């Protein structure tokens, strides 16, 4: 059994969800090249506007018309997004661009034994979208589509205007007095084929299911990419934060379904003159909650100046990864933490810069410079075999005047291995030494430069 869902006003209705004022206006979407009305809202319908009417005719019907250009790419993206939502409930989906899709109920028969169950699921999935749709159910994809488009209950009642055939053939049928699919099917197939040609035979075979439809099946997207046009130009970050929140909530929904988190957000702000401001929000530790992501975006946005008013926002989420959950300790009682460590580190890195926040980690090496490394913040310290090392390290050893120092303990000789010896003898003698003011330092004598250096401090 096939279900066909048609969404005649998808793009406009999504626009209304984001900009609720539109519901009180006569709004239409029009094709920019042909100046034809493509989608409209109920108020427009009440004003007498129909799909396929020219924009000029629509203006004559009402003066309060709010026309917006119809964007085909956006429509396709919306349909894809919708399908990925429906994918939660239906395994086999095929898109029928620009405004419909097929669902195969057969693979889901165990879950939804009756058609009514499938329809309930469909309603549940589409409810948050706040869009109007019509559906039709049939034995073959084509019948389902014809029923959905015509709104008829029986396949036999479908007017032939809805048949996907050439205008010539439709004209011929009408002249023969055949107005419904039922009337057409009543004619014996060989007779009809002889009179009306090959095209009709193939069409009837498709309707009967004797010929397979070639459908391209939908597979869920790997990345999250969305664009959102704004109703009015926004000139400040503050005005952008509301629509941005909307996008982030959809992202959260997307990530929730996959139990994933994102590590990189790419925000694009489209300006009137085709220029784009791009903002990259890197999250070292991943995030998925809209609230938290919005805060990170705001932190980033504060640092950048908005050069021109924005017409459209784009959001892309990259570097998706499985979520990591912080395990609490049952015995130690509830933690007092108000946010997770990952969240905290994200916030710190966004404000201070990625390089400014790091962890330190031991490395299993003998040489001083190699025995530690900067690690991503939050990494565990690790273990070491080394002994008698100072807690402070001066990253760039400072040349010192040895007369100010009094050597205490040493030497401890460090020689770089022979395979690293190409720049001469790199041996060093390390000493615990005392500065003449009483502080304890960690000095070394470098044989290559023949000089004393301060490399760390004890205590």
């Amino acid at each position, binding site marked *: 059994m096939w279900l066909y869902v048609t969404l005649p006003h998808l793009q406009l209705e999504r626009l209304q969800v984001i900009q609720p004022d539109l519901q009180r206006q006569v709004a239409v979407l029009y094709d920019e090249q042909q100046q034809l009305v493509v989608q409209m809202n109920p108020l427009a319908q009440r004003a007498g506007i129909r799909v396929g009417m020219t924009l000029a005719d629509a203006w004559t019907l009402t003066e309060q018309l709010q026309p917006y250009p119809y964007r085909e790419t956006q429509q396709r993206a919306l349909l894809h997004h919708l399908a990925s939502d429906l994918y939660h409930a239906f395994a086999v989906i095929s898109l029928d661009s620009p405004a419909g899709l097929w669902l195969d109920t057969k693979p889901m028969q165990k879950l939804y034994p009756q058609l009514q169950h499938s329809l309930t699921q469909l309603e549940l999935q589409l409810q948050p979208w706040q869009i109007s749709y019509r559906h039709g159910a049939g034995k073959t994809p084509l019948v389902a589509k014809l029923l959905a488009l015509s709104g008829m209950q029986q396949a036999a009642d479908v007017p032939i205007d809805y048949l996907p055939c050439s205008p010539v053939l439709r004209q011929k049928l009408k002249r023969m007095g055949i107005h419904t699919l039922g009337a057409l099917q009543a004619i014996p197939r060989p007779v009809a084929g002889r009179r009306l040609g090959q095209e009709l035979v193939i069409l009837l075979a498709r309707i009967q299911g004797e010929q397979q439809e070639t459908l391209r099946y939908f597979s869920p997207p790997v990345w999250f990419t969305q664009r959102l046009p704004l109703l009015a130009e926004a000139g400040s970050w503050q005005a952008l934060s509301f629509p941005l929140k909307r996008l982030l909530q959809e992202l959260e929904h997307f990530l929730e379904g996959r139990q994933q988190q994102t590590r990189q957000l790419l925000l694009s702000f489209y300006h009137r003159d085709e220029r784009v401001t791009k903002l990259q929000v890197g999250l070292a530790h991943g995030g998925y909650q809209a609230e938290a992501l919005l805060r990170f975006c705001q932190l980033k946005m504060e640092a950048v100046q908005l050069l021109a008013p924005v017409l459209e926002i784009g959001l892309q989420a990259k570097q998706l990864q499985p979520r990591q959950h912080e395990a609490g*300790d049952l015995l130690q009682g509830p933690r007092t933490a108000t946010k997770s460590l990952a969240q905290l580190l994200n916030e710190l890195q966004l404000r201070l810069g990625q390089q400014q926040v790091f962890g330190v980690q031991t490395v299993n090496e003998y040489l001083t410079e190699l025995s530690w490394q900067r690690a991503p913040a939050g990494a565990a310290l690790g273990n070491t075999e080394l002994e008698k090392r100072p807690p402070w390290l001066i990253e760039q050893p400072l040349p010192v005047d040895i007369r100010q120092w009094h050597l205490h303990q040493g030497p401890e000789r460090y020689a770089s291995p022979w395979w690293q010896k190409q720049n001469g003898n790199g041996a060093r003698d390390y000493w615990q030494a005392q500065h003449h003011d009483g502080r304890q330092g960690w000095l070394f004598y470098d044989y290559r430069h023949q000089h004393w250096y301060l490399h760390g401090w004890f205590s």
Partner: protein
Amino acid sequence: MQAPLQQLFDRGSLWLGNQQAHAAADQTSFVTTGQFELDQALGGGWQSQRLHEIQVPQCFIGELALVAPAFMRATQQQRPIFWISPPAVPYAPALAQLPLAESEREQAKHIVLTPARPADALWAAETILHSGQAGVLLLWAEQPSTIAIRRLHLAAAESGAYVFIVSPWQAEEARSYATRLRVHFSQDGVTKNGQVQWQLLKRTGGWPLRLARQPLPQWPGK
């Protein structure tokens, strides 16, 4: 005694000069400073959820040794240790030498922040404390303002962390610290070894105090 006053006594925010602030012990916990005399003067050591100031005439004169036991406590609790604008890099092998069980020692988390501006450093400290994640927070600041200290004091009150602010010698005007420790650094006349003298400008449960001279405290590693 008046009821509001009694509340302050119960919280340990106010105390009589001749008695220790023990009432607060159930909410906060003490960790040793590693120095017996200093522990005694502080009524048990550093208190968590409070601000402790360490005033040093110059860096690297044993201030890290005083907070090392707090590092160990935080590591045992599996909470990270934050270093905000330290004067040098904390050297990982030395940190990994602290006398702890190996499994705990390996899992220690030291996070270093090097903000470009002092205002960012204070913001970071406050954010970290508010998050409730930190075990120990160390902040090196040149001249933290009264307001900044007050804000950190409020943030620390619910953080569960040991908070230390290391700065050069400051004027002795009132600040929201629980402990103000001034370190005097000098040289032993005979051995020429460095020695320190701790002056407590402010402490919980006692009058200001100056302790006897000590040899430089040592980092408790191997």
